[in-house]
């Protein structure tokens, strides 16, 4: 959690990192941990909400009322003197000013609304948010349906004005001037005596309405910001300074640095500046070259855009290239390394998790869960651990050595090529639920050449002995490559090609392929 919050903060230090917790017994303890992990906002979410896409069982039976979780969280944070450094938010069918005031008195200072504003926009609670058939044009991209949207922002503004007005009225009655004064003032809540239902007998609210007796100097609402220690990062110390010409005016730079494993999230802040300045397309390839020697910490190059190239001579930790968004990452052992690269780990677990674009050349073996949820990166490695390419939806993985078990589980897109020297990959390592396999040599020449040229580039970047060896006897090596292709993905690609052959381009071709699949009942 701390790692994730730190990574995200690096990727955009203007953003508040908000951690959403389900209201349930024990959420206070979890929230205390989250506050220590430096979340800026903690959201305690009640059991009443849920999107129309969620199954009925989840809408109605997940979690507890926000009142319970919120009270517990606020008390725990107060007792540990953590309350003053986080904002506490709550949601889950808040609909009126009264709801907001109660939430505030129980300890929240921010409040989430979703269902009620949606209703003011015209939502009819069809529960088809996931089907692209929303008849009032809210939860859909279908132009025919979006045309039917009759709502407007004014309705939401109007609704929120009513809520605010009611809050103001209630605050006046209670004698509060500001929300901050009101946060956590459970002494202002009392049980309604008039409710005399037999089920209410024996209910004890004292735990909810308890106000911890803390020292006067303990802050009862958010009064300070979390210290994310961004100033200690390698980016703030060195890289940003040296990369300034590239960020400001696109002048290529090359930065040489030593790196040690306490340098986490290297390059991400620089990448964020590039994205901020140059937009999602980043800079031309290799504009910012960052050459690192040593052992890099977690999340090297996370979220980095096009135009950044990392060359690590040494090794890297977990989360290498997490969420990579166009950058290029090269990892290779030092020239004088005595190890056999394709038999030794060079990068940690969960590399390129959720990456969307970019390239990676890793001369060595990587850990478990390689390229999980990858949707665009093209990566070359020389061996990988269990669960490779799990839930991958796009991109390409080329592995020049052994893999672990359960490869390709839930893989719905992208393609992988495995050098299966022992010939047991398909029978012992592959999860065949969603994928098909082909010998590479049965693919067309163009595809075989593409694989070969990718290996050539790998050798060029990393001087990989394994790659060189395969290229030297390519005819024989090619025989041992297996191509892994998700079945559905293959069918869509085929439909897409047909659409393009008909002269369609871009989105139109994708739409045509989509409709062909829908028509075929997929």
């Amino acid at each position: 959690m701390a790692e994730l919050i730190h990574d995200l903060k690096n990727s955009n230090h203007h953003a508040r990192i908000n951690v959403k917790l389900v209201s349930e017994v024990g959420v206070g303890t979890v929230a205390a941990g989250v506050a220590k992990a430096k979340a800026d906002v903690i959201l305690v979410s009640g059991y009443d909400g849920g999107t129309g896409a969620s199954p009925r069982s989840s809408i109605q039976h997940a979690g507890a009322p926000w009142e319970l979780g919120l009270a517990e969280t606020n008390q725990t944070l107060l007792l540990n003197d953590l309350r003053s450094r986080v904002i506490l938010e709550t949601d889950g069918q808040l609909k009126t000013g009264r709801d907001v005031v109660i939430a505030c008195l129980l300890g929240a200072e921010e409040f989430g609304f979703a269902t009620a504003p949606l209703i003011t926009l015209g939502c009819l609670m069809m529960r088809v948010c996931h089907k692209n058939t929303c008849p009032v044009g809210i939860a859909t991209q279908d132009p025919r349906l979006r045309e039917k949207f009759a709502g407007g922002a004014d309705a939401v503004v109007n609704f929120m004005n009513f809520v605010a007005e009611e809050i103001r009225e209630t605050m006046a009655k209670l004698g509060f001037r500001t929300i901050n004064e009101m946060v956590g003032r459970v002494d202002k809540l009392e049980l309604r005596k008039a409710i005399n239902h037999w089920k209410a007998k024996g209910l004890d609210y004292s735990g909810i309405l308890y106000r911890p007796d803390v020292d006067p100097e303990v802050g009862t609402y958010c009064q300070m910001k979390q210290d994310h220690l961004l100033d200690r990062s390698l980016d703030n110390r060195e890289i940003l300074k040296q990369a300034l010409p590239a960020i400001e005016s696109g002048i290529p730079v090359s930065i040489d640095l030593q790196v040690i494993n306490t340098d986490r999230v290297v390059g991400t802040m620089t990448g964020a500046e590039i994205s901020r300045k140059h937009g999602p397309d980043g800079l031309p390839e290799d504009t910012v070259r960052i050459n690192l020697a040593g052992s890099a910490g977690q999340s090297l190059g996370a979220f980095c855009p096009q135009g950044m190239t990392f060359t690590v001579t040494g090794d890297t930790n977990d989360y290498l290239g997490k969420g990579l968004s166009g950058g290029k990452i090269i990892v290779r052992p030092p020239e004088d390394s005595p190890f056999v690269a394709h038999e030794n780990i060079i990068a940690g677990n969960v590399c390129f998790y959720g990456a969307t674009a970019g390239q990676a050349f890793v001369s060595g073996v990587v850990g478990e869960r390689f390229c999980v949820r990858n949707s665009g990166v093209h990566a070359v490695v020389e061996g990988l651990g269990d669960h490779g390419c799990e839930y991958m939806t796009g991109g390409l993985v080329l592995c020049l050595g052994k893999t672990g078990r359960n490869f390709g589980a839930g893989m719905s897109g992208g393609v992988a090529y495995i050098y299966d020297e022992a010939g047991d990959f398909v029978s012992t390592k592959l999860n065949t639920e969603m994928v098909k396999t082909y010998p590479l040599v049965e693919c067309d020449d163009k595809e075989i050449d593409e694989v070969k040229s990718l290996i050539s580039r790998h050798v060029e970047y990393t001087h990989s002995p394994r790659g060189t060896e395969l290229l030297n006897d390519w005819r024989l090596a090619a025989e041992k490559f297996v191509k892994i292709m998700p079945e559905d993905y293959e069918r869509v690609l085929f439909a897409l090609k047909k659409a393009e052959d008909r002269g369609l381009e871009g989105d139109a071709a994708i739409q045509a392929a989509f409709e062909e699949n829908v028509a075929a009942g997929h």
Partner: protein
Amino acid sequence: MGKPTGFLEHERQSIPDRSPLERIKDWKEIHEPFNEDKVRQQGSRCMDCGTPYCHTGMTLANMASGCPINNLIPEWNDLVYQGKWRDALDRLHKTNNFPEFTGRVCPAPCEGSCVLGVIEPPVTIKSIECSIIDKGFAEGWVTPQPPASRSGKKVAVVGSGPAGMAAADQLNKAGHSVTVYERADRIGGLLLYGIPNMKLEKEIVQRRVDLMAAEGIKFIVSTEIGKDLPTKSLLEDFDSVVLCCGATKPRDLPIEGRDLKGVHYAMEFLTINTQGLLELKDVSAFETAAKSKDVVVIGGGDTGTDCVGTSVRHGCKSITQLEIMPRPPEERADDNPWPEWPKVYKMDYGQEEAKEVFGEDPRNYLTMTKKFLGDDRGNLKGVTICDIEWKMEDGRYSPVEVQGSEREIPAQAAFLAMGFLGPEDTIAEELGLERDSRSNVQAEYGRFSTNIEGVFAAGDMRRGQSLVVWAINEGRAAARECDRYLMGETSLP
């Protein structure tokens, strides 16, 4: 469930009508048969809403919104789409004893509250309902289902309209021995003599009556309780009595010339017409009040429409329908949002036919009748009418004559279709039943028990004039309460 994209692919299509000029030549139903595949396609338009309104039966702004008998509409829409007609029929019969009636004559508050109606013409629920039950009869799936055992209790149902029939059907299902009394010569009440044949063919009513008779219900016709047979005798001979006598007192128009020959209540006209049709089976043989005459229909409701359609079939010379309310808007007004019953302009079958024959919609809005004019032999020869405006006076709207708008129109026949005031007094007075401020029999909705022990009241007699579907709702529910009274518990819905 269903087809998520059905409503995007198909447009609404209801059971088609025969062309007006063709259908006015006979008294047969105005509808054409509906292609089965079309119905399935229409079923696919149902969106399987997360929050459906079609089956709610709420009352919004004093009108029904959603089905008053809570028909399981999304379920059988989907079953029809899947082609599971038999299952659809079973689902339909679960809540509705007489879908062949409601599928033809119900104004369909379900469609008014259909969620699809927010953005497009709603699902054609009524046509689907009608198709399900028609197919059920055609396939021979609807057969007599007499109860497995008898409770030994005897119940009398007075009145054989939709409420009485529904109550009788339910009580019989619960095993009680039911006798239905009807003062007319045939069973059916307003279903038979109130609704003309082109809207609901009388064979269809008789088919259901035969089915119920085969299930063990005893029907006694031409016997008016309170006249031919004292009501008190029912209390002695039966364990319980359910009164479903309707709200049959018509609203009169006590203006000058009301007694002239040619001025009739609409219900007299329609009843005689259907009687003639049933007795003689020949249109030409019962030339009535309307043939070759200038006809004026006073009242713009369904009964008025039926008078128009009937007069047109008789070959009237001209037809004018007078309505005191303004012409409704083409689309919902701002104060009439979904899912309320849509108060919008509609061309019903009678007006459509009149328009085809005479070139224009016969309805005149914001018009009031001032007097009936007679010739020296006491026959109606014209009507004096005027335009009105609705003005706020003393906190309520009242009609005010527009100065100088008074005029005469020729009329040799005038039919009063201005609604009903409440139930007749005979039975209520004999038993000493308590009445509410609108003269309806006092019986709390949901309990249906009157101030006399063992006597229940349901339908128009209790709630005042209303829809067939409300009558079925009340008949079913009164049967449940009657069963509970008789047995101490009930399993009727």
